[in-house]
């Protein structure tokens, strides 16, 4: 099993969700996050006082899937979240040691 963690632009979330649903991914976790990479922040001005925000708002999605599906999930996210502009985000793939469905106690891939 793999954990696929992607940081994407917030407005791309719906496209990514649709693409993953098409692949049969059963669930995902979404968080609103802030961070910085190469994309610069924005300048805000209030009555002449200028503030540069270094942190840019992003959405983080986390999906766990079986090994066979991993490559296609990563590819789908990469395509759906791509706007061609700087700041489109990153995808990370991590190994998952175990998964447990709390209601039934099922473990491993059947718990996904």
């Amino acid at each position: 099993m793999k954990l696929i963690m992607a940081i994407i632009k917030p407005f791309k979330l719906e496209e990514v969700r649709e693409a993953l649903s098409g692949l049969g991914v059963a669930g995902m976790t979404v968080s609103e996050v802030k961070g910085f990479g190469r994309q610069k922040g924005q300048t805000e001005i209030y009555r002449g006082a200028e503030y540069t925000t270094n942190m840019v708002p992003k959405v983080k999605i986390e999906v766990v899937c079986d090994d066979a599906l991993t490559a296609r999930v990563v590819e789908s996210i990469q395509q759906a979240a791509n706007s061609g502009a700087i700041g489109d985000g990153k995808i990370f793939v991590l190994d998952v040691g175990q998964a447990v469905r709390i209601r039934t106690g099922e473990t491993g891939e059947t718990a996904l």
Partner: protein
Amino acid sequence: MSLLTTYRGAAMAAGLSLLAAAPAWAQEVATTAAATAPVPDKGDTAWMMTATVLVLLMILPGLALFYGGLARSKNMLSVMTQVGAAAALAMLVWVMWGYTMAFGDGGNAIISGFNKAFLAGITPDSMAATFTDGVVIPEYVFVSFQMTFAAITTALVLGSVVERIKFSAVMVFAVVWLTIVYFPIAHMVWAGNGYFFGLGALDFAGGTVVHINAGVSALVACLILGKRQGYPSEPMPPHSLTLTGVGTGLLWVGWFGFNAGSALEANGSAGLAMINTFVATASAGLFWMIAERLAGHKASALGFCSGIIAGLVAVTPAAGNSGPFGAIVLGAVASVLCFIAVSKLKPMFGYDDSLDAFGIHGIGGMIGAIGTGIVYAPGLGGPGGADFDMAGQLLVQIEAVLATIVWASVGTAIAIFVAKLLTGLRVSPDVEQVGLDLGEHGERAYN
């Protein structure tokens, strides 16, 4: 009759100036012509009661939201509470000794006599004079209307000291400041035997009494209190310009009570004040955004709101003393100069007038007060007579402005030091960091 004569003479010299020796006139009438005592017009009375509650709307929730939105979220409740509680305290002080100090009988050019302390002698049958001979309104309505002015002026001052001043210090400051600053200035400008009134200074709805006074007091108070922790290196953006926008709208609506109500009657003068309160404000809102564009920024929502307030402030002394097109120009000029004051002057001098009470009310008030001496001219569409002497009037206006600045500065310094002596004035660094909502009131604005 001497007071009455003073009033008529001044009124003639100044044209449509303000308030007059209201109680004195009322008493003249009551004592000399009981049989023909004027009956208040129901239209005037109804309008003045409405105007009075419109000014309350300016404070709660208007000013509370306008200021609150500009603060950081951890201080939202503290700003709203300070504004509300200072205004409430001002109302009580007003009926105890404020009204008599400003509008009681007798006294001198600085304050009135104390015969109306605790509203002594006022009954539902007591009448207060208006600008028209023989036209009166119930004195209780006049007391209430003027009460709201004292309340909002106190609250306005707080704009420069929020986010670090103790709640208890605000309460002490309010009592002392009202007593030694607001009541005497209100008397000097609006009472028939007041110093500025005697000079013939034009101040329709309180440019000097309310705005220059509040703005200058705010500046002095924030200089003594010191900067907020982290100012100006740390970002302190407004936490909700949405609420500031809502507050701006409420202030504009309420300001019709403030300005048009200052005519004291439902008549053409009130109508003139009304249209000027529309057009000067509209012009100022747009011109602030133009100034932003010329300075290389984007036209902003906060700029629009700030311009609206600057225009309202500037048109206050001119409301019934200007033609509509004079008011449009006045609003535009005040807006641009206030923009420069808050975005250039403040950073240059480095004082922490947190919500720009001085930059907008102080500067806007001065432009308005001095500008009123120009737009009053009949050649510019103003209501002045053909013999209006602009140079002479400007000198009087400037004298009133300077005297207000000096009086407010000295009085505020005293009031702040008294508050410091009794309360310590400033919250601890820990409370400032966690926010005054939790530290001073034990609540959070947003859960």
